[in-house]
């Protein structure tokens, strides 16, 4: 696969908010993964190129918002996180247990780097044996997941950071 084609695929992934893309044709197989925390394709053949997600846009946004930075406190004492102007903290609306997937063997709703639509379920908080789906407050990209799977969360605790856009 030519570099031109791969570039086109990257643009396509970005436009459609895809995190991972795998294409196989006569010429071979290509697997593209965006984001930093996504699993690497270790062990796969050298013929499969791994292409980092395009981030210039995000970096630009961060740089542009440098003067309008806000911070969010984290409860574990790891210090405040800096937020760019187009980044929003998704806070827990209730006390409960945070789950990233609908069931232990299901895939997580979102990963860091996932694109989300407004209203799309992004996690579950179990409160009083009720599974409450938490929805994305805005369309954009999940840039950070702050809460640990299967751990308690309190009201107002920062769960994730979404980059709106």
């Amino acid at each position, binding site marked *: 696969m030519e570099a031109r084609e791969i570039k086109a695929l990257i643009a396509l992934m970005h436009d459609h908010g895809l995190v991972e893309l795998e294409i196989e044709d006569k010429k071979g197989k290509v697997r593209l993964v965006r984001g930093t925390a996504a699993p690497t394709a270790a062990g796969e053949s050298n013929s499969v190129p791994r292409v980092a997600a395009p981030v210039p846009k995000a970096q630009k946004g961060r740089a542009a918002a440098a003067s309008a930075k806000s911070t969010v406190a984290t409860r574990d004492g790891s210090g405040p996180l800096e937020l760019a102007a187009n980044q929003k903290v998704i806070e827990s609306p*209730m*006390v*409960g*247990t945070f789950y990233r997937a609908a069931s232990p063997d299901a895939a997580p709703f979102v990963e860091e780097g996932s694109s989300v639509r407004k209203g799309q379920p992004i996690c579950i908080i179990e*409160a*009083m044996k009720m599974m409450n789906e938490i929805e994305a407050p805005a369309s954009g990209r999940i840039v950070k997941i702050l809460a640990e799977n299967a751990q*308690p969360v*309190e*009201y*107002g605790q920062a769960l994730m950071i979404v980059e709106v856009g």
Partner: protein
Amino acid sequence: MFKKLLVANRGTIAIRIIRACRELGIQTVAVFSTADKDALHVRMADESVCIGPPAAEDSYLNIPSILSAALTYGADAIHPGYGFLSENGDFAEACQRSGLQFVGPRARHIRLMGDKPRARRIMKRAGVPVLPGSEGKGVTEVRDAFADAKRLGFPVLIKAAAGGGGKGMRVARNAKELVRLFPVARAESEAAFGSRTMYLEKYLENSRHVEFQILADNERHVLHLGERNCSIQRRHQKVIEESPCPVLTARMREKMGKAAVRAADVVGYSNVGTVEFLLAPDGEFYFIEMNTRIQVEHGVTEMVTATDLVKESIRIAAGEPLGFKQRQVTFNGNAMEFRIYAEDPERHLPSPGVVSNHHPPGGLGVRVETALYDGYRVPVHYDPLIAKLIVHADTRDLAIARARAALREYLIDGIKTNIPLHMKILHDPDFIRGSFSTNFLSRYERAPAHEDPVAPAAKAS
């Protein structure tokens, strides 16, 4: 015994419960609203959970949120403290259904005593003297209230059937006042308790508020720990409480204590509770209501009986029997509690703000229960009670002297408090003589209250 207890409250009582748990070797979980993230109880507890935004109905009154916190953090018991959910039968029931031990009486006892006309009927049947008042289930309309008032004779006290904390309560001295005040009290009751049901009681002039502390285990051992005189009230809210009551003889104490024990025993009550009586000038006493929780003023009884009521309540909830009998209860000296409010002493308006130079008094027989610390911001969202000063001495005169010295020592900057009012009371000849009734404080109210366009005219008189 419990392993981990969630404290479903804030302020001084939350700290009181955390201390008791610490002595009992129980882990604690504090809950807090976003307005209380810097509160002392949050810092003191082993774990803490934010349960909602500042408004009490979304946080400290939010049953699903509190239960979820208890279950998520692995608590096995919940202590409700006073106020908030402490007298909510649905909460007690929801705790039990979620497998959490509620530290307090059973849900049905909370509901029974919360329905004041029903409690009056049961007490009357049990032979506990009850004030003349509305019969049956209470009244909702002015004309029915008027019929009751005519039968009782004025003045009458209009009260909310679901009442508590002085809300929905008014004195009517004649028919005109009744017609005017009944709908006001009813509206207040509807707003505070969601109930339009009211009842009337004969209003006794110059009577005292005398309440008895009850302890009852799950095996129906019921005993009392003597009385507290809580006649120093402002708008039906207690300001100073003391034990023993200066006018009660040993014979009267025994008689009233027996009636209080009977009131609790007849319904099969368990845990801590308080039976409130009105003591008339002629020495007759009448049941008013029973509070099914720890009281703000529990410390007064703790000092004179050397009993830790909060620890007892937790032990009883854990199923332990009482470790002593009525005849082993002894009374030593005199104790007084002064409720310190963040309020302007002249205008009686809340005075929130940032506390600085907080120096609580100390010394022999001086106890301060507070959630204040330097730099703490008293929030606007909750009750303005910020500290309780409790003094204990061999005699009433010594207790008064000790209280004066302690209050003089008490420094709080940044906010206004009612300490000046306490000082005035401690120099009042009638207070010093122990000769006062529930309308005592009206003498300090009249002048400023009339000049004050914000506060309605004093009605405690």
